[in-house]
């Protein structure tokens, strides 16, 4: 017999819900079987924390006196997007502060960009606004400067077009020189292999066919509350899959939104990626309602069963050849080294597993204490594999 989200919420309100993390559910399903686990467990919490470049924040600055239709603006010298209404702006996570040397001195350090600005705002720090305009009859002001904090602006929402990638490549370097990529520093001749997923804790790997995660799903976002707004850009579900249904290539993504004012710099951290650019590390946790056996079985997936593809970032990735060098499991990646054609290659993550675990635990506590209820998705996200199964 299945459960509904409404029934699970009743149990959460009564303080009776059984909530476990995506790590804990592995042992439960192993010990009791999926059928009993589906009856006993109500919610499985997941987590991930890693650089997510496709992130940013909408802010309404409130009006200056006299009023101004902002044409160009900078916050802490980071240019912000102004091509919307008079005082609405968007901070892009990878935008660099003016006069940053970028990669002129290679590899560039990218010390301060949009991600750092968002972190500073969330940390309550004062940032400096500079705005210019051409003046109109209704908005005569042409220049505006002021210091502000997050508390001073009218609205501030984190709105990220693509986050929480369902699986990702493992990056290596086959060339004979060091390369600097968004996947970190890659030493020559297979010197290291970098990966970026929380594996068995990762939200979308635990609901591989998007049976529960949809538009309107309430989530842990940046330390506060957010929602799944839509599927993310580049969302792709036509990919090879393993036994749990989990994709073995980069696949689904989500677009997320939430009030920046409730978030924390611990889970929204500005990153400087050497030789590449600035970014924002985002913490996301998604609760998976255990509706039935299928759901809990998929959520019990373990690192040993989750596979990622190894890609050469010196040639194949930049040239888009589509060539893969092999496949490895997350269990191998997390052991500290992988074996590629007989060569032992040390691994390094970019996604923090310890912080992913912290997020899953935190979300579990929120739900167990009745402070976080599950929401009913308005519509599920597109997924060809699920739609074929149902249809």
């Amino acid at each position, binding site marked *: 017999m299945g459960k509904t989200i409404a029934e699970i919420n009743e149990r959460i309100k009564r303080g009776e819900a059984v909530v476990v993390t995506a790590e804990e559910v592995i042992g439960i399903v192993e010990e009791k079987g999926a059928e009993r686990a589906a009856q006993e467990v109500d919610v499985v919490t997941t987590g991930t*924390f*890693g*650089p997510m470049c496709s992130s940013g924040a909408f802010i309404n600055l409130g009006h200056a006196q006299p009023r101004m239709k902002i044409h160009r603006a900078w916050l802490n010298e980071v240019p912000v997007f102004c091509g919307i209404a008079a005082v609405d702006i968007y901070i892009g996570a990878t935008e660099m502060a003016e006069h940053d040397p970028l990669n002129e001195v290679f*590899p560039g*350090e990218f*010390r301060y960009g949009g991600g750092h600005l968002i972190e500073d705002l969330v940390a309550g720090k004062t940032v400096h606004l500079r705005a210019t305009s051409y003046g109109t009859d209704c908005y005569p002001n042409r220049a505006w400067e002021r210091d502000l904090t997050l508390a001073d602006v009218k609205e501030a929402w984190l709105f990220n077009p693509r986050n929480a990638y369902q699986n990702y490549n493992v990056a290596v370097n086959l060339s004979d020189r*060091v390369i600097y990529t968004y996947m*970190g*520093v*890659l*030493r*020559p001749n297979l*010197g*290291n292999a*970098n990966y970026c997923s929380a594996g068995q804790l990762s939200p979308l790997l635990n609901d591989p066919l998007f049976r529960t995660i949809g538009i309107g799903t309430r989530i842990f976002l940046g330390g506060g509350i957010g929602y799944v707004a839509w599927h993310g850009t580049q969302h792709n579900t036509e990919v090879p899959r393993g036994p749990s249904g989990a994709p073995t290539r980069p696949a689904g993504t989500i677009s997320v939104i939430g009030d920046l004012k409730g978030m924390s710099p611990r889970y929204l*951290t*500005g*990153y*400087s*990626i*050497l030789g590449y650019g600035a*970014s924002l*590390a985002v913490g996301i946790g998604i609760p998976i309602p255990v509706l039935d056996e299928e759901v809990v079985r998929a959520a019990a997936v373990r690192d040993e069963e989750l596979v990622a593809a190894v890609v050469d970032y010196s040639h194949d990735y930049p040239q888009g050849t589509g060539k893969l060098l092999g496949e490895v499991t997350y269990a191998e990646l*997390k*052991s*500290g080294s992988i074996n590629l054609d007989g060569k032992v290659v*040390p*691994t*390094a*993550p*970019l*996604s*923090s*597993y*310890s*912080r992913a*675990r912290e997020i899953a635990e935190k979300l579990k506590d929120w739900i167990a204490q009745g402070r976080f209820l599950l929401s009913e998705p308005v519509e599920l996200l597109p997924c060809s594999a699920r739609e074929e199964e149902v249809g």
Partner: protein
Amino acid sequence: MVRHKVVLHFPHEQVDKPIVSKLVRDYNLDFNILKASITPREEGLLVLEITGEDDDYQRGMDYIKSRGVSVQPLSQDIRRNDERCTHCGACLAVCPTDALRADRSTMEVLFDDEECVACELCVKVCPPRAMEIHY
């Protein structure tokens, strides 16, 4: 008699030359190798404790520098700002020693400054810039 701890950075083309052995032969210096490794850029990194007469030490270091080897005192200190470290693990790809390593059960990245040779490779690689140089 003087005793100094120094970090030597060997450029790529000098890695296989017998530069250090000359210190013993021509400058009467004694050394202990505290750490030796090849960095990702194929540069050599050697941390030595050198003892000898002050005069010999100065001349020995002048000789080494003339071969393109940089000499830094090991007084500079790399520290981790634990508040900023997100335990992402990006530094594991570059640290030439065991100073930065992962605890595989907690998946936290541990920093052991006893093992650190102050090569600074982690400093710019760390995305939240948690590794700091203190002088």
